[in-house]
């Protein structure tokens, strides 16, 4: 059996900048989607399209975004999926607050009472935004699991194939080794039986 000395895939260590870029990129993309749906659900009159039912913004969108983020970051550790959901929620809440207080930030109005949203609406937004974390966390973990099983990278796939091939080869070698050993043991067991015959 031919043994491959070197693998065609070199598993390079992940660069820190690549890792940071990936995490920030995917979490920011998710946060933007969540922010739009979240804000437009509370203030549908400002949205150019109908954002749909509130359940979409509170449950479906954070879960979906967390899932995709987890799947996209599935090449990294499990803890990255957890951290990314925290970053994603933080970014989304930050963006929601920025949009909510945009007239104050830009200096359009000087007073909270002049904002286009009421105190009650703002309180609802703040309280509801807390629920983004558990939903995006569940989505992220599920996405990570899905990504690992169904969306491995080409490198990972080849590495897995090589691993399967190697394992099979080692399995075959072990089988033949065991068979050989068993055969030798049987032969050794037969030899003492033959020896007394020769003595006689």
């Amino acid at each position, binding site marked *: 059996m031919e043994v491959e000395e070197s693998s065609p895939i070199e598993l390079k260590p992940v660069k820190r900048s690549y890792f940071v870029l990936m995490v920030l990129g*995917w979490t920011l*993309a*998710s946060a*933007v*989607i969540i*922010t*739009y*749906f979240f*804000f*437009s659900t509370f*203030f549908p*009159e*400002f*949205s*150019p*399209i109908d954002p749909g039912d509130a359940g979409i913004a509170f449950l479906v969108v954070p879960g979906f975004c967390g899932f*995709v983020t987890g*799947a*996209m970051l599935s090449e990294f550790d499990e803890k990255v999926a957890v951290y990314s959901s925290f970053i994603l929620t933080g970014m989304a809440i930050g963006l929601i607050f920025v*949009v909510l207080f*945009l*007239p104050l930030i*830009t200096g*359009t*109005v000087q007073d909270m009472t*002049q*904002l*286009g*949203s009421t105190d009650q609406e703002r309180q609802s937004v703040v309280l509801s935004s807390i629920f983004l974390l558990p939903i995006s966390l569940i989505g992220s973990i599920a996405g990570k699991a899905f*990504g690992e099983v*169904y*969306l*491995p*990278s*080409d490198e990972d*796939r080849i590495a897995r194939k090589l691993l399967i091939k190697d394992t099979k080869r080692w399995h075959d070698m072990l089988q033949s080794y065991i068979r050989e050993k068993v055969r030798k043991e049987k032969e050794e067991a037969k030899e003492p039986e033959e020896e007394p015959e020769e003595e006689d």
Partner: protein
Amino acid sequence: MNKLVRLIGISFIVISLLSFGLLYVTSVNYLNYTETASEIPQNIEISEVRIPLITDESQDQTVEVLFTVSNPSSLTIYVTGIEAYIYMDNLSDTRPFLGKMNEILVGIGQFNLQKADSHIIRPGESMTIPVRMTVSGGSVFMSILNTTANGKYYPYVFGTLWFTFEYIDLIEVVRGVSFLGSRGVEPY
């Protein structure tokens, strides 16, 4: 990166960019709405109250209140309704206004329009909107209206104005638009 991951990634980025565009428009609308809603109340005034010279109290008379609305904001507004409570002060009654307001009420002039028929004021424009009230001849309100001192009327007007926006279906109410005719109004 395999093809399926690439496809999911690109689709997700497209959704994200689309959401960013929608979020931008939503934010601008929110910003403009806040700006308009905070600026319009300071730009509404009752510029004139027109009361005819009443020579015969048995005939119906029309009082006209002119509301001037300026729109310094960046959104077009639609004035859908105005309500004006018109009082006529009797200078011989020295009580403060709150003490005699029920006795000097002449009537309410108002209109309510659908958005399509409303008064449209574009950014940077001003408009004078008349609100008319007809007082029936021979009524007690006619005698209240026909109260003059030194040949002048001394009306008080308290108005409420409703307006909405071009692309935003929210109705704003501006209360307390007032006209205090302490200097008197010449009849026309």
